[in-house]
């Protein structure tokens, strides 16, 4: 199977799963944004995405994407370190055009993974998981209140968003490069689109997180 036994194939898996995850993040932030207009709307969406068959299928696919993305990331990194050989350079300099993020994707990914673990505990484990187990789930708003009522949630989330931003600014154009859609002009365009996309999505997430924190700590009330 070329997707696993060729370097380009493995990268295609990373690329497609990565793009899929970016798409998911985009929907995620848009749904969260609904809460900015009123928690009753947010509840409606939570209701809609409960443990229905379509939501479960979606979650399964999503989880699959995540797992593949993560497994392949470690696999590729392991191979790449091996390819580098045993002796490291005494001195190495990063060319100006090389993005910092591109050389630290695994580290950024691990930060994101940790953040995701926390996030799943705070929300998924209290909302969809109990429903699957046949127990009574928490309401979306309650989960938000519980999570963002803690003072430490926001800084951790911001760090996570930051890591995601770096991860996506490189991952976005890199994905298009890997699936062979780029050329000299489109590399620049994809980089630009990726930058804006990451900034808007992560910006929105950050705004939401800050809003929830302020709201559930009763600092603002609207």
């Amino acid at each position: 199977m070329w997707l696993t036994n060729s370097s380009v194939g493995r990268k295609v898996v990373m690329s497609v799963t990565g793009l899929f995850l970016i798409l998911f993040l985009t929907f995620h932030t848009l749904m969260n944004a609904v809460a900015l207009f009123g928690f009753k709307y947010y509840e409606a969406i939570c209701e809609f995405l409960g443990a229905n068959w379509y939501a479960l299928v979606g979650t399964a696919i999503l989880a699959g994407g995540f797992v593949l993305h993560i497994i392949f990331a470690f696999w590729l990194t392991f191979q790449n370190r091996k390819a580098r050989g045993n002796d490291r350079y005494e001195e190495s300099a990063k060319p100006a055009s090389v993005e910092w993020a591109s050389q630290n994707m695994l580290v950024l990914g691990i930060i994101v993974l940790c953040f995701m673990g926390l996030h799943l505990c705070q929300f998924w484990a209290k909302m969809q998981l109990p429903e699957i187990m046949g127990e009574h789930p928490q309401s979306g708003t309650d989960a938000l209140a519980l999570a963002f009522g803690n003072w430490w949630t926001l800084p951790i989330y911001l760090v996570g968003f930051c890591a995601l931003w770096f991860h996506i600014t490189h991952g976005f154009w890199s994905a298009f490069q890997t699936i062979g859609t780029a050329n000299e002009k489109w590399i620049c365009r994809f980089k630009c689109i990726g930058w804006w996309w990451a900034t808007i999505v992560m910006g929105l997430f950050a705004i939401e997180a800050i809003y929830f924190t302020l709201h559930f700590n009763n600092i603002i009330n609207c």
Partner: protein
Amino acid sequence: MENAISFNIKVWRQAGPKEQGRFEVYQMQDIPTDTSFLEMLDILNEQLIEQGKEPIAFDHDCREGICGMCSLYINGHPHGPATGATTCQLYMRRFHDGETITVEPWRSAAFPVIRDLMVNRNAFDQIQQAGGYVSFNTGGAQDANALPISKVDADEAMDSASCIGCGACVAACKNGSAMLFVSAKVSQFALLPQGKPEAARRVKAMLQKMDELGFGNCTNTGACAAECPKQIKLSNISRLNREYICAKLAD
């Protein structure tokens, strides 16, 4: 105009592929700045020979930036700090009085060190042998002008074909990937009608060989293109991916 600098040079010495390597520091006095980097190493070697020591082994041949033989990793850059130039095109005016210059061999599992700064780049030949050609026998060609080729494509193919096979891309890549090298050859043929009939076979064979030889996976950091002495573009890699994916999907 006659300027001269003095500096320390820290050079990787390794007696053989299986031996333990180490750095040695040498002092260089009053080297004219219009000396090329390799001429500076010649001077150092003459000094070592005078002391009855063995000179530093390094690859070099044409000394005009085209044979691709020279392969030194200088101060953290393959081919040194100049852009678009090979080691042999690097002149001492790029360096400062009193500095320490670090010189290392290419470091990659696929390019084992032979001695000192000399590495074995046979893997590149093997990749080319896997498919870097158009299959036809001498004498079987039609008239050269019977096949018009758009100037744009021909120029782009020429840019890709400028690769000198020095291995700086692999040396620069944190993943030890040879994608820029492979993509340059694949692109040259993919852009020209002569290469089309066996394009799918070529890209699959070359890529398979590249993977087999232990080069890393490309993560699009772009260090290869940034350090390439012939400024081979990163878009070649995308073309290689495209060619490969299409070839595989067509199977």
